[in-house]
């Protein structure tokens, strides 16, 4: 069984170019893997500029920045919220279409963490994202930002005009785990 929120395309049309990065859970502590988020995001960004040979330097810089920012945020979230004890891989796919990029990040989370995450998603989808961003920042200015503040997603929506969607799936082999996929679409 699966549940969908926001703009999530279940059957992606074939794209001419795509990259898929996979991260297996291992004994490497998250801090050492954290460094890979930036390296992976920058690699995806650099790689994708190849497909825009005739664009100007400033357009290249813009594409690089957008891919790098979004890929980095998705990887940070996937690393942060995956339950390391679950021993399931994390992946990040980036698909190039004529008019847009589509990112899909997938990671396992514990079922008990699902309600809070879904509540955060619903609030993002039902609010004015800019007002919600300001409200969250003002509310948290004296305290630490809670888990699932959604601020990373809100910056993608507000600053990069991204469309976001999520899919939650039950794991057949383990009812205590859900697989969450986050889709981010940005126009070129």
């Amino acid at each position, binding site marked *: 069984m699966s549940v969908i929120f926001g703009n999530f395309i279940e059957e992606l049309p074939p794209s001419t170019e795509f990259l898929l990065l996979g991260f297996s859970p291992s004994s490497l502590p998250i*801090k050492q893997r954290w460094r890979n988020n930036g390296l992976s995001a920058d690699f995806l960004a650099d790689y994708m500029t190849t497909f825009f040979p005739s664009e100007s330097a400033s357009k290249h810089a813009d594409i690089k920045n957008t891919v790098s920012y979004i890929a980095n945020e998705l990887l940070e979230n996937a690393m942060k919220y995956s339950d390391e004890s679950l021993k399931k891989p994390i992946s990040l796919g980036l698909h190039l279409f004529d008019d847009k990029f589509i990112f899909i990040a997938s990671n396992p989370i514990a079922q008990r963490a699902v309600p809070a995450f879904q509540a955060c998603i619903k609030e993002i989808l039902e609010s004015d994202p800019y007002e919600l961003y*300001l409200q969250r920042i003002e509310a948290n*200015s004296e305290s630490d930002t809670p888990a699932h503040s959604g601020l*990373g997603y809100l910056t993608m929506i507000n600053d990069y005009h991204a469309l976001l969607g999520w899919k939650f799936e039950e794991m057949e082999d383990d009812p205590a785990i859900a697989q969450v996929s986050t889709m981010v679409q940005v126009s070129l």
Partner: protein
Amino acid sequence: MSNLAVAEVKGEDYRVWYDSATNTINCEGSLRLGGAEEYAPIVQILESAIAHPPIDLVMDLTQLEFLNSSGINMLSKFMIKARQKEGVKITVKGSQTIPWQGKSLKNLQRLMPTLVLEIT
């Protein structure tokens, strides 16, 4: 009392430091630390810079190539702190050649209306 003449935090690919001679906080490189706790040493530099107003603080971000959302949150929260203090003026300097700055820095002005934003 702040006794930090020059305070600095450095990592593998970033550097943040405060130069009290010019009242300038400089940020360089790529900042993608893993959340509020890891940003705490940088927050300390920012907050001690405005500990004794009046001050005309400059934040020079023209060499800051990348900032993750946790870093954007840190800057946003700092603007609220600065807004709440009398006698604190802030100028943020950005670069047109670094696209995230044009997209994200304008939000800081909503949080601190007196902020001067120079993106050149």
